[in-house]
C-alpha cells in the first residue's frame, strides 16, 4: 500500500487527492453487496461525524474524527484515507464537509457517488446555504428524494415557533422528511435511526 503513496503536496497531474478519493469510494462501494449503505452529507461543522458516532454508539470501525478543526474529516490529503465505516451489518460514509477550501463543493458534488447509497442523510446547522440548496436540488432531480432525510442539527436552542417557521421554509425547497436533531440532548436520534433502518431486508 505504501509503495503507491504520494505526498499530500503532490496530487496526480490531472486529479486532486479529493477527486481520486471520491472515485475510489465509488469503486469500494460497488463491491459491497446487500448491505445497507448510508451517507452523511453536509456543511463543515454540521455535526456529521458526531451523528455517526451517536448512531453507531461509538462502535463503528474506524471511528469517525470529531472535532472543531475545519476539515477534521479530510479526503483531500491522504489518498488512502479510510472512506467507509462499518457497524454490524451496515456501512456508513462520513463525508467531509463540503464547501471548505480543501473540499470545494463543485468537485465534491460532481464526483460523490450518490446513487450507491440506500440512505442519504443531509445535515446542516444554522441556515441552509447555497451549497445545500444545490445538493438538495441535485438529489430531487436524480429522483433520490425518497431515500433522503434532511436533518437540522444543533436544534436544542430552537423554540417551537422557530421550528415551525423553518419547516415552512424548507417545504418549498425539499419535498422529503425533516428531523430536528441535537447531539446534546439526543433528541431526533431515534427518528434518524428509524429512517436509516426502514425497509432494510439485508
Amino acid at each position, binding site marked *: 500500500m505504501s509503495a503507491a503513496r504520494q505526498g499530500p503536496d503532490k496530487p496526480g497531474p490531472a486529479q486532486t487527492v479529493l477527486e481520486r478519493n471520491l472515485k475510489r469510494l465509488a469503486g469500494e462501494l460497488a463491491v459491497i453487496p446487500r448491505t445497507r449503505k448510508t451517507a452523511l452529507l453536509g456543511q463543515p461543522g454540521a455535526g456529521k461525524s*458526531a451523528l455517526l458516532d451517536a448512531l453507531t454508539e461509538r462502535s463503528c470501525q474506524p471511528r469517525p474524527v470529531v472535532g472543531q478543526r475545519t476539515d477534521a474529516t479530510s479526503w483531500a490529503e491522504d489518498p488512502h484515507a479510510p472512506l467507509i465505516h462499518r457497524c454490524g451489518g451496515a456501512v456508513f460514509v462520513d463525508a467531509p464537509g463540503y464547501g471548505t477550501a480543501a473540499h470545494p463543493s463543485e468537485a465534491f458534488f460532481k464526483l460523490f457517488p450518490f446513487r450507491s447509497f440506500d440512505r442519504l442523510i443531509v445535515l446542516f446547522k*444554522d*441556515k441552509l446555504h447555497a451549497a445545500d440548496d444545490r445538493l438538495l436540488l441535485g438529489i430531487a432531480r436524480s429522483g433520490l428524494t425518497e431515500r433522503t432525510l434532511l436533518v437540522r442539527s444543533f436544534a436544542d436552542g430552537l423554540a417551537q415557533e422557530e421550528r415551525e417557521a423553518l419547516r415552512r421554509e424548507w417545504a418549498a425547497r425539499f419535498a422529503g422528511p425533516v428531523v430536528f436533531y441535537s447531539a446534546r440532548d439526543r433528541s431526533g436520534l431515534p427518528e434518524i435511526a428509524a429512517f436509516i433502518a426502514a425497509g432494510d431486508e439485508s
Partner: protein
Amino acid sequence: MGLREDAAKLRQDIDDEQNVKLRIALFGQPGSGKSSLINQIVGQPVARTGVTTDTTVEAQVIAHEELLFVDLPGYGTSRFPPNEWMDRFRPEELDLFLCVFAGKFHEADTAFFKELRAAGRICLFVRNKLDDLWEDGRTTEELRAEIVADVERQIGAAEPVFFVSCRTREGLSELVDGIKDSLAPALRDKYARSAKAFTLAHLEAKKEACEKSVYKYAGLAAANGLNPVPGVNVGVDMSIMYKMFAEIRASYGLTDEKVNKLIPSLLPLGKRVLDYGTKEGIVLLLKKFAGKSASTAVGRFVPIVGQAIAAAAGFGMTLAAGKSYLGDCHELAQRMLEQELGIGRAT
C-alpha cells in the same frame, strides 16, 4: 476669531461628527448570527434576525447613532465572488471588520478573511454561538483552544478570537472592549457614544465621550442667541439645545419604551429624564442655571468651543443645563445597568 466664526466652526464640527460614521463591516456565513451581534452591540433590535434563510444578497446597511453596520448576507456565494466584492464595497472606506463564524470555516471565509488581513485591515475574529459549543466528553477550554488553532491554520497567522454568545451575553463585554481598543483614537468617542455599555467602565467612557459633545452643543446654542429664555436676559438656540438633549438620551439608549418599563424605584428618575427632554423641560432647566457663569473654568473650553463663545453670555447656562441632563441620563443608565448586572443597590 469672533463669535460668528467660532459658531460657524462649531456647527461644522458637529455636522462632521454626525456625518462621519464609524463603519463596521460584518462578514460571516448565513446563520452565523451577524444580525444578532449587531443588536447586542447597540443594545437595541435594529437588525432583523431570524432562523430562516435570508435570501437577499444585497448588503444590509444599518445605521445607529454614529455607527454604521454593513452586513453582507450572501458574501462568497456565486453571486458575490470575492474580487467583485472588493471593488463594490471598497474595504478601505470601512473602519473595522468583524469576521463572524459559528462553526467551521467555509471556503469563502478562508478566502475573505485572508484577503482582508493581507490588505492590512483591522479584523476581529468573533466565534459566535458560544452556547452551541459542545462536544461529548470535552471541556469548553479544549474546544476553544482547538478553534483558536483552526483560525491560525486557516488564516495563516495567530489571531485572538473573541468567543461570544448573543443568547447568554457571555463575552460581549470583552468584544466591545476589543472593538474599542482596535479603533483609532478619534473614532473611540464615536463608538463609546453609540455602543451599548456592558459594564460600568463602558458607561463612564460613554459619559466622557458625551461630555465633549455637550461642550460643542452648549457653545453653539449660546452663540446663536435666537430664542430669549423667558425671565432671563439672554437668548439661546432652543433647537440646538433640543438636539443635544435628544442625542444624550439616545447615546444612553433611554427610549420612551425602556423608561416606561422601569422598576418603581427608578421611575422618578426616569420621568425626570423624559420631562427635561421636552422643550418646556429644557427651558425650566435653563432658567434654573440662569446667571451661572462659565468663566471660572473658561480655559478648559477654549480648545473646544473657541474664545469668543467661551465668553458668550449664555454659555454658562447652556453648559450647566447640558451637563445636568447628562448627569441625570448617566445616573439612570447606571442604575439600570447595575440592576441588569445584579449589583443593584437597595433604595
